[in-house]
């Protein structure tokens, strides 16, 4: 680091570790979250995402290691709502209180007024139900209330734990747009999900964990590339000849139907060049990218804690 290109990290976790009894929920996580990006925090259910979120917010104490927000422990911020806005996965709303009073009570801790509360209720679309008790809310309405809470203090960093849970398609679309516009504003958005497909839509950068350990810290494209080990599909009338020409030690060629090869370990450019040099006619040359979902499954296969036993 250093020099003009230095980007201030908003969240820095260093060897973060958390044990509950003799169960290790978070195991030596080191990562950073930068402003102006949507950083996806991915992992199967039970992999330690929510625990990490709670550690960042000082709700739980780390067993060892350290995590800071804007250079300080969350607990040491004099006005935390202006630094970080958080949506926690588990409901964090008194079921007997209306959405309006819930937001107002939290706003008042920072001297934030009623006007702001009303603005945010409108923003998240809860205007018509703001005076209803939160216990009567659907999961989606609860998530919207959580988003409003996170945005109360106009924070530069947002921490959202599974925000699309329980939302209808319109709500999911709304969240995606919101996350992108928040990042475009220069804010850091750290959003967890167990759904790879969701991250493919919104995130620029991925932090992937399994069983509390870091699996990947990379861009979305890089993640797919690395995990999938791209496969090239070739369709040719001279498939058998081509098969011998491209064979090599790190290259595997499979064929499921006559005239079609699936080649792993070589680029599509290379296959095309070999074919041209040998005068082989190609009817198709396609780079098959594993979907983000497949890449995720591949990487976390050994790290899913509760796996359905597959009958052997």
């Amino acid at each position, binding site marked *: 680091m250093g020099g003009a290109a230095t980007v201030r990290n908003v969240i820095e976790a260093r060897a973060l570790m958390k044990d509950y009894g003799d169960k290790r929920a978070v195991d030596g996580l080191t990562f950073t979250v930068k402003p102006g990006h949507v950083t996806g925090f991915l992992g199967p259910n039970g992999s330690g995402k929510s625990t990490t979120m709670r550690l960042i917010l000082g709700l739980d104490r780390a067993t060892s290691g350290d995590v800071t927000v804007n250079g300080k422990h969350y607990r040491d911020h004099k006005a935390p709502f202006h630094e970080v806005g958080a949506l926690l996965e588990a409901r*964090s709303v008194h079921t007997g209180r209306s959405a309006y009073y819930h937001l107002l009570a939290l706003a008042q801790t920072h001297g934030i007024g009623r006007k702001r509360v009303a603005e945010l209720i409108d923003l998240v679309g809860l205007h018509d139900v703001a005076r209803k008790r939160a216990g009567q809310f659907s999961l989606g309405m609860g998530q919207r209330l959580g988003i409003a809470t996170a945005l109360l203090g106009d924070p530069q960093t947002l921490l959202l734990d599974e925000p699309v849970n329980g939302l209808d398609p319109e709500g999911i679309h709304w969240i995606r747009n919101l996350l992108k516009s928040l990042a475009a504003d220069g804010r850091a958005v750290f959003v967890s999900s167990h759904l790879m497909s969701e991250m493919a839509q919104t995130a620029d950068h991925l932090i992937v964990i399994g069983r509390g350990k870091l699996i990947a810290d990379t861009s979305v494209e890089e993640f797919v590339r690395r995990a999938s080990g791209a496969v090239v599909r070739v369709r040719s009338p001279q498939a058998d000849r081509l098969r011998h020409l491209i064979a090599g030690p790190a290259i595997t060629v499979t064929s499921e139907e006559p005239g079609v090869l699936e080649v792993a370990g070589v680029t599509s450019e290379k296959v095309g060049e070999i074919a041209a040099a040998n005068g082989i006619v190609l009817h198709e040359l396609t780079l098959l990218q594993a979907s983000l979902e497949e890449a995720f499954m591949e990487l976390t296969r050994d790290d899913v804690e509760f796996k359905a036993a597959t009958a052997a």
Partner: protein
Amino acid sequence: MSSVAAPVVPRLEHTGRVTQLRVILSEWTKLHSLRSTRWSLFAAIVLTIGLPAIFAAVTSSHWGHMGPRERADRHPLDIALAGVNLSQLAIGVLGVLVITGEYSTGMIRASFTAVPKRLPVLWAKIVVFGVVAFLLMLPSVLAAFWASQAILSKHDILQTSLSDPGVLRSVVGGAAYAMLFGIFCLALGAIVRNTAGGIATFVGVFFVIPPLLNVFPVSWQNAINPWIPNSAGRSIFQLTHGPHSLSPAGGLAIFLAYIAVAVAIAAVLLVRRDT
């Protein structure tokens, strides 16, 4: 159409830090915006005033049938403050709920992300709940006093006045006791973090343990009894103090000491525990 447009988060002009005063305001909003608060406090007021009124009416109508010893056992202040014995239950339950309601619903996580130092939340809950409980209980016990006296005065029996020695102290003491009892229960709630557990604990300490002391020899009872929370607290509003009970000031001091210990334990655990 609105679903397509990217929502724009309005900017916040002023930024303020978390202060104890702001947290107190926040806790006031939390307290008055719950239905359970209004019901508990309503029940406390009705019991505080209603019970003495009924006792006064019953005593009045039976006065003619009572023997001299039975009459001597009746005291106007016992009647006036009889409601406190029951309304303290409503106050105690509310004291527990003020904190355990946040744990059972998950609200506590929102509260602690807003105020990550945590202790200001506990102090604010104690202040707000204490002030509200006292401000409602004081007029209630005064009303109970006047109502019971008015009913008794029709038969011209058991008359006393706030200007009589110790009477004003007892009446105000009744309201103070109810408030302090509620704060004790709030601290218990913060320690056990569970509504049923908190209620069971205060019922055990205040209503189950005292009668159990009867298994001890009388000399032991006389030595132990004045110092248990229940007796110490009641000394604050009892008019007469025998050889085996503490003075009002002494009882208040001991009761406050119990509360201080409970609040201190609650504070330490609140800061240390994961949420």
